[in-house]
């Protein structure tokens, strides 16, 4: 093994880099990033105070579980909202189509922070929803639903015209065409993007901390306040989110690869 082959990808696609080469290169990249971080703290001359933060580990866990719970429930509802929006968008009844269109454009065109404020102070107040968690789940479902609707719409539009023609020739009704031809293919091609959107949902739920929903980020901020520390608690926070998003992003990659081989 030459030093070159340890750090460079070969030009031929048929020869992937060896496990050793991948491990070594990964370690170098990670080391470089860590060095940057250490250098930053060195410059700040920061006094670490991990022990006081460590005492609040139960609080971190509680917040992490809250984020997991809120994200999971929001995910289910956002799929529901997204699927309904997609069906409305495909409806031949034009007002419904425009309703779906306006919904998606409004949500995608405004920051989540603004949506949280409007939903919390205006809509939730007017509808007299007392439970903050319910409000949070509604906001995330509505927000993420718009993106999921776009993903599903792209998936549906990606099903080839020849497939539709074939379904028609077989004698499938419109419903059967959707059920047996469009939906399975669209869902399959949307899976990588949907997994990615799930990771986004988890990260975006951190903004719910501004309306005092006691999720992961809010708990971390509280620990910071209790311990008079500046940023010790942000590290467990980042790691906690990565523990959720990394596996999902990995899954998304795997799905993407499988899809490429299948078609």
């Amino acid at each position: 093994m030459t030093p070159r082959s340890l750090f460079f990808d070969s030009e031929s696609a048929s020869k992937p880099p060896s496990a050793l080469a991948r491990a070594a290169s990964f370690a170098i990249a990670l080391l470089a990033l860590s060095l940057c971080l250490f250098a930053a703290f060195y410059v700040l001359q920061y006094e670490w105070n991990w022990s006081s933060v460590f005492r609040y580990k139960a609080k971190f866990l509680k917040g992490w579980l809250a984020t997991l719970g809120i994200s999971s429930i929001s995910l289910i509802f956002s799929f529901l909202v997204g699927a309904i929006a997609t069906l409305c968008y495909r409806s031949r009844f034009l007002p419904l189509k425009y309703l779906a269109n306006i919904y998606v454009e409004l949500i995608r065109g405004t920051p989540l922070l603004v949506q949280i404020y409007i939903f919390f102070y205006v809509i939730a107040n007017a509808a007299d929803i007392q439970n903050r968690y319910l409000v949070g789940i509604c906001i995330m479902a509505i927000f993420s639903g718009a993106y999921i609707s776009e993903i599903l719409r792209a998936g549906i539009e990606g099903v080839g015209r020849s497939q539709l023609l074939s379904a028609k020739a077989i004698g499938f009704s419109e419903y059967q065409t959707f059920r047996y031809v469009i939906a399975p293919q669209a869902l399959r091609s949307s899976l990588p993007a949907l997994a990615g959107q799930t990771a986004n949902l988890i990260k975006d739920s951190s903004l719910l901390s501004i309306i005092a929903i006691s999720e992961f980020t809010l708990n971390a901020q509280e620990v910071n306040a209790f311990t008079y520390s500046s940023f010790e608690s942000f590290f467990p926070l980042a790691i906690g989110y990565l523990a959720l998003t990394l596996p999902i992003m990995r899954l998304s990659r795997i799905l993407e690869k499988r899809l490429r081989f299948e078609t």
Partner: protein
Amino acid sequence: MNLRFEKVTMRYGQQCALDDFSLSIDDARCIALIGPSGGGKSTTLRLLAGLETPSSGSIQINGTEIGSSEPERLAYRKRTGVVFQAFNLFPHFDALTNVALPLEKVHGYSHSASIEKAETILEQFQLSEHRFKKPAELSGGQNQRVAIARALAPDPDTIFLDEPTSALDPEMTAEVLDAIERLIDAKKDLVIATHQMGFAKHAANQIALIAEGKLVETGPAAQVIENPQSPRTQKFLSACLSF
């Protein structure tokens, strides 16, 4: 089979695929549509298969008008089979399901009866060993034979084939043409758009040459190919035979 096109015009936006097209063929078992690409063969076939509605004019098959309302056309499509140039099998189903699903969902077979029937048909086309493979795992010729099996399985009156061998190499072409001959043996009425002049001549009773959205010439197969009357047909056939 009798076919009648009366003053049929088919427009796609600005483009006119069939222009005041009239055609009348009686008592044919197998009709071949020949002519240059983009001349209107595929459009003619799609109209015949009830997949599209003409902009104007009327089309009759065996004395009945292809209905203009969607329920009528759906009922008509259930009685016909279509084979496409690019096979158009469903990529997420294996060969068996591709054949069996329409039987179960459209033609009222029970699940087990649909599987049984599909297996019998695939067997006829020597595809039994491939029945659990998906289209991506099959060769072009095998895919097209599955598509032919799918079209034949519900026992339709008529089968329409749109350039079924144009995407295939010579060996696969032979294997697919062989499968099409089985359809003729099974006493199905066929309409086939094709560039295979040899096949058209020996398998078809009637040939219609369509070019530039018009009918150029029609008649018994041997007559059109060996003794074409119109200069446009002569030009097309000499191009077909010169290389």
